[in-house]
């Protein structure tokens, strides 16, 4: 009986996984077909593997520029958001003052409040940061703050306070104490947050449209060269999606084993 149940569960999970895989498989396999063969979006192999779609993604879609911009901007956002939010979270979760409680609420509100695109654009305009990498990086880091702080605050709580006090007796400066002793201990949360922020900033579209011109656009924007209201070149769109997902896939492979450990204290015990 138990064995039957076990196989049943295994079967169900295999089926579920299939459901999750099929859409991605469809994109991959159809990206090697061209329009005439693509009269329906099937899941079978193409008659012949064609790379012409990929060639067009790089020549007409400026994929190299998109990849470079995406990696540059997203990496910068990850570094800034991790440093800045871990420090803020350390203060928020440790300090017992009213200020720290208030700040926690202020930051968490950012998860709820929708972003105000045009007013943010105005800020960039008046600080002369429109169409600059710096502007995109700073706004992107800010967008990443609330959720990062939320996860970090929970995680920092799992690090014993005694460590802070011990470090202080050594007489080290406070920032040194934080980065030498606390920061290494919250590495699982850092891995999770870094991964989410990389994915999030790589996928940001709205900010790209308004805050920067196409020379700063990241990979997901390149699809618009092929996707219009009337002209949908699905074969090239599929290839573009694959190139867009490729770096994310690498980040995901490296990062996914940290997801659960990073969340354990971060989201669940908070």
């Amino acid at each position, binding site marked *: 009986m138990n064995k039957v149940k076990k196989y049943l569960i295994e079967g169900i999970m295999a089926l579920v996984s299939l459901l999750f895989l099929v859409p991605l498989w469809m994109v991959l396999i159809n990206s090697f077909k061209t329009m005439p063969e693509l009269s329906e979006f099937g899941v079978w192999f193409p008659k012949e593997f064609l790379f012409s779609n990929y060639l067009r993604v790089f020549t007409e879609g400026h994929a190299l520029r998109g990849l470079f911009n995406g990696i540059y901007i997203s990496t910068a956002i990850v570094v800034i958001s991790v440093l800045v939010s871990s420090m803020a979270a350390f203060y928020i979760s440790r300090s017992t003052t009213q200020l720290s409680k208030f700040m926690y609420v202020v930051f968490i509100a950012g998860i709820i409040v929708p972003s105000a695109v045009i007013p943010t654009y105005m800020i960039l305009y008046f600080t002369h940061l429109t169409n600059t990498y710096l502007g995109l990086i700073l706004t992107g880091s800010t967008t990443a703050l609330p959720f990062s702080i939320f996860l970090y605050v929970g995680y920092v709580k799992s690090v014993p306070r005694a460590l802070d006090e011990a470090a202080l007796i050594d007489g080290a400066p406070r920032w040194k104490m934080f980065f030498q002793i606390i920061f290494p201990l919250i590495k699982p949360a850092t891995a999770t947050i870094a991964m989410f922020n990389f994915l999030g900033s790589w996928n940001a579209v709205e900010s790209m449209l308004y805050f920067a011109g*196409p020379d700063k656009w990241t990979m997901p924007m390149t699809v618009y060269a*092929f996707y219009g209201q009337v002209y*949908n070149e699905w074969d090239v769109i599929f290839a573009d999606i694959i190139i867009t997902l490729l770096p994310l896939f690498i980040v995901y492979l490296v990062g996914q084993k940290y997801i659960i450990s990073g969340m354990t204290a971060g989201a669940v015990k908070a």
Partner: protein
Amino acid sequence: MIRKTSRIAISLMLLLSLIGSVVACGSNDSSSTTTTAVSTVSTATEPVKKAPVTFTLATFNGWGTNDPILKTAIKEYKEFSGNTVELQLFPDDQFLNVIRTKLASGDATDLVDIAADQTTIPTTYYEPLDGPWAASLNPLMAAKVTRASDKKITTAPYSAMSYLGAIYNKEVFAKAGVKPVLKTYNDLIAACEAIKKIGVAPIQIANKDQAGHLWQYIGSSYLFKNESDLAANIMSNKVKPQDDAGMVELFERTLSLKKYLKSDYASATGMDALKQVATGEVAMFANGSWCYGILQKDFSDKLPNIGIMPITLGDDSISVTQTLGGCGFSIPTTSKHKVEAAEFINWFLQPEKIKEWSQWSPGTWPYNGVDTEKSPWDDEMSGYVDQGLTTDLGLEGQFPNFDFVKNDGYALSIQSMFVGKPVKDTLEAWYKGMSDVNKSKRTTGW
């Protein structure tokens, strides 16, 4: 406690002052209209000797008609002048808003290609334009692209003045015994019945692309002829469209076509519709003669079998509709390469260049005396005029500010009508759309 409140007060004041400064900065540099026209008449024909520059051109991924023209032009212009034009392609559903925001803040590209249309973008954002082409500009088009405040041209239109009508399959028509032109609404219904009998779907409206409104838009000229002050009254909010019996009847007649639509009308795109007419799955699809260029790409063998004809939803009048729409270049006042951008426009609009571009946009261009490629569809439409049909420039030609037919309110509400919105609600939704747009434009009377 006191310290806490004072802290909050201080931070609030800081915030307010910051916002204040933001608002103040915004209002300082208004009305920065430049009065000197960027004119470089002489340099249009000889290569520029200056160091090559790169300037940017923003446009959107629309029907794809301006795409081959722009790409070819940019390539040729680089060979001619050494200057590089960098094409920036925006998503078409967001282009207008993005470019309006960037124009307003002075962050736009050096050159923009939006539409030969003055109603969606404040013309104060543009440099006045001049060049050899300006003299030959069609007067009706010239009126459309000229700024009211100082009578300067601010947009240089390019692309043919398309005819609007029903693109139809000649073979299907012959088989069903239908002959163009269908001069009344009743003729249209009779033709649909005949086509239905031979097992072909009479009409495709491509509702996915909101193309359903086109049939009504083209077919409505009778109404505005019969009720000559209706358009003006709607524009000034004196008459609500839902209160006008003629308008209600027009919408009802449009909806009555539903039983003649191809079954996939809700999901079909404009491209699907063209394909279906080409292959004879559908008899008719209302659109513009610019579609000839699109069909040339994939269905050149079928083209002799496809025609275009005027349509009407009225009982007593039909006319050949031409449109003043199309693409157009403008130079933002904040452009960093005004001179080079103007040189590009002048080079682009030389008569022999227009002739070259017209292979992708065949028909009459809005430049008098300029020889362009014509498609058989242009001949067919002008043939109907020779047979005695009146021509009109569509509603936009007769009423230069009658732009609301193009905004979301009209097309969107008719799209909804075909999937179940009652006629009365459709008219109200259109009115709501018009009211939103006119309020945001601060039109008097709204």
